[in-house]
């Protein structure tokens, strides 16, 4: 198991490294002169030159890249060009919104999807199954930002149970803050829960057809004992991958949803930075999100190794 996890860690580190090179190329090399790009076409050449030296653009490319990486490893993401504050400070504030939102949505998605998927699979082709499959079919097709607008229309404007947007900050109290993240989390979670429930159902149905479930039934286990005791754990193994992928989707989806609810998260930051051409902020946020995805992938790998004894020994 250690070997397997070490190998995964190595491969994920390489992925992270490659991703950092891609981000560096796209934000530093492809725009030609990042300083000119950031200041716009009508900028004063002297100001561009000043920014160039501030960003260290007169240094060799490899040096700039290493500088960036080493800086990040020390927690230094550079100075935002528009806000004139360290990027780490900007990002730190925003992560306090984006990460809780993503985890909130992931928890909702999982809590809704697992019971729904198991329920549907245990009633294959019965009315309950067909109803859940119909609802999830619709859920998969709904764009989360549109769903968010409908939620605002119903719960904020018509019923006035929630505010239509904004975030009071964690200082206002955990419950108050969570309440303001509830509609965004639901908007993010339901479409993903639909996907997860469908995957859960089909994985469980596949597992229920396996020989060892028939063996369990021959031992005297009832249908539901065989499902809970034997099929479920095996069925969860492929579902783990999907849960990991969902984290990535929810993180990206959050960027969009934050715009619907005017939440001061990474998404808002990134779009402001894009419109202000602040590449320093853009690349920092993106590399952070990639890091989060890679970290979650590794967590999923660990979960895999725990769930599947075959992995504890060897895996390609």
């Amino acid at each position, binding site marked *: 198991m250690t070997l397997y996890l070490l190998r995964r860690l190595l491969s994920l580190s390489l992925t992270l490294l490659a991703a950092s090179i891609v981000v560096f190329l796209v934000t530093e090399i492809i725009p030609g002169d990042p300083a000119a790009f950031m200041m716009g076409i009508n900028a004063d050449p002297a100001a561009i030159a000043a920014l160039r030296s501030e960003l260290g653009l007169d240094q060799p490319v490899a040096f700039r890249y290493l500088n960036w990486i080493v800086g990040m490893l020390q927690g230094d993401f550079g100075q935002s060009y528009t806000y004139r504050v360290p990027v780490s400070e900007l990002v730190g504030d925003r992560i306090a919104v984006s990460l809780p939102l993503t985890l909130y949505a992931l928890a909702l998605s999982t809590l809704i999807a697992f019971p729904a998927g198991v329920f549907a699979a245990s009633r294959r082709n019965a009315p309950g199954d067909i109803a859940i499959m119909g609802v999830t079919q619709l859920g998969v097709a709904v764009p989360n930002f549109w769903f968010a607008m409908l939620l605002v229309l119903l719960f904020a404007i018509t019923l006035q149970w929630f505010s239509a947007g904004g975030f009071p900050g964690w200082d206002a109290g955990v419950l108050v803050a969570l309440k303001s993240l509830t509609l965004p989390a639901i908007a993010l979670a339901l479409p993903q829960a639909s996907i997860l429930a469908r995957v859960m159902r089909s994985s469980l149905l596949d597992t229920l057809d396996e020989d060892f479930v028939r063996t369990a039934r*021959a031992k005297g286990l009832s249908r539901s*004992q065989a499902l809970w005791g034997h099929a479920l754990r095996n069925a969860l*193994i492929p579902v783990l991958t999907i849960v990991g992928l969902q984290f990535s989707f929810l993180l990206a989806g959050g960027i969009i949803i934050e715009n619907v609810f005017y939440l001061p998260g990474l998404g808002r930051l990134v779009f402001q930075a894009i419109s202000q051409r602040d590449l320093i902020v853009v690349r920092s946020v993106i590399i952070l999100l990639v890091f989060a995805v890679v970290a979650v992938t590794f967590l999923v790998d660990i979960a895999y190794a725990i769930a599947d004894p075959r992995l504890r020994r060897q895996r390609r």
Partner: protein
Amino acid sequence: MSVLSVRNLDLKIGRIPILEDVDLTLDAGHILGIVGESGSGKSMTALAIMQLLPRAARWTGTIEVAGNDVGAMSERALCTMRGRDVSMIFQEPMTALNPVHTIGDQVAEVVRIHGEAGRRHAHARAIEVLGRVGLPPDRVAPDRYPHELSGGQRQRVAIAMAIALRPKLLIADEPTTALDVTTQAQILDLLRKLVREDGMGMMFITHDLAVVAGLADEVAVMKKGRVVETGPTRQLFRQMRHPYTRALFTASAHVPERQPRIETAATPVLEVRDVVRDYPRPRKNLFQAQAPFRAVDHVSLTVRAGENVGLVGESGCGKSTLARAILALEAVQAGEIHLNGKAFSSAGAGPDIRQRAAAQVVFQDPYGSFNPRHRVRRLVSEPFFLMPESPQDADRERRIGKALEDVGLTAGDADKYIHEFSGGQRQRIAIARALIIEPSLIVLDEAVSALDVSIRAQILDLLAGLSDRLGLSYLFISHDLTVVRAITDRVLVMQAGRIVEDGSTEDIFHNPRHPYTRSLLAATPSLAAALDEPSGETVET
């Protein structure tokens, strides 16, 4: 006392009749063999007794297990019955166990689920039962997972689960079909012993007459959902009242007539010298690579023109790997392969395309050997690709037609798709594809192993006739010694990547020298031997 009584069992799946008027009885301490070819309804009968039928199945009649009418039982009562009064072992040990639970837990579960013992006591019982089936804790720890066990060991675990509560009836559905002969012999001995010790009744389902003849007290022969003949084993095989029983018997022992003309003087068709085939193994840890796995270990062999050579050995002995190396599908790490005197290997740009035409192949699986999207014409003529100028138009049609007629089909079959043919016909098409460019060697890799005995007999006749008529050489790879004996002139015995014995078929079977050959022969069930023996094995109550 009767532990199983089935009367007038009719079963349909949807509108398709599967079983018709099946009657069976089995007494405690007896073994009832159910024999039949695929589609005869053997397995469905077993599932009906267990009441684990597919959803669409509907049945009528009476099934009594240990005096209880299963048709009148609730699902809850059935759950209590399964595992306690009646239990079952399935064919495929590789998939029959849950991969994420330890074997000890899986055996203990039977004890726990029936309320026989609490968690800790159940575990102690599991260790005891695993010991009974030959898996004592000091050799195979109960906290092992199924993937860490061999196929035979897994089947023992399945048996342990089945007999943990000493059921009155044990149903074994082809429990040894997926196992090697020596493992099969051990499992059969184990089952025989358990039946005797526990006094349970066993219903043993198999396609193999020799296995059933050596094991069962009574036999029921099934064909197309009906029991065509039933009776005490010896008596049934002596009299064979029903023509189907007779046909099965003849086909099982079928030896095709052959007049081989082996050219000893000419250059051998195939010469393999000191061939080695290694596979890399996964690393042990980050810093230490493992020595590669040597699947074929310095093997040499010769096949002469017109000669049929058998290559036998158990699974994993390297025989299929050797076949692929001979066909230049895989590179070898050492040694040479000569085809009609010229080197033949996949090294570099691969073998000369014209040379490839000399060696063709027929695989085991009649369903996987063809691209389902092509018509038979295109399937059969694929090897024309190997000819410098592949025949066109009328000549092409004529040769396709001839190849199909050579294997007992018609030229008109060229227009059909592969799914329109049965398993036996597909194997004929595979042979036609191998024949069409007139190779000198055909490698037959378990080519008749997936076929029912009656079809197998026909294909063996076809192969023997073709070899005699065209002077073809075969390298006949099989795990089945009976078949190899019927069709070959010479036999090579392979064990753990090495050829341990090489001799004429007669010699090897009558006078085996290597201990491994002897153990293989001793483990192979023989129909004739089982019927000649005095009745010492049968247990009367």
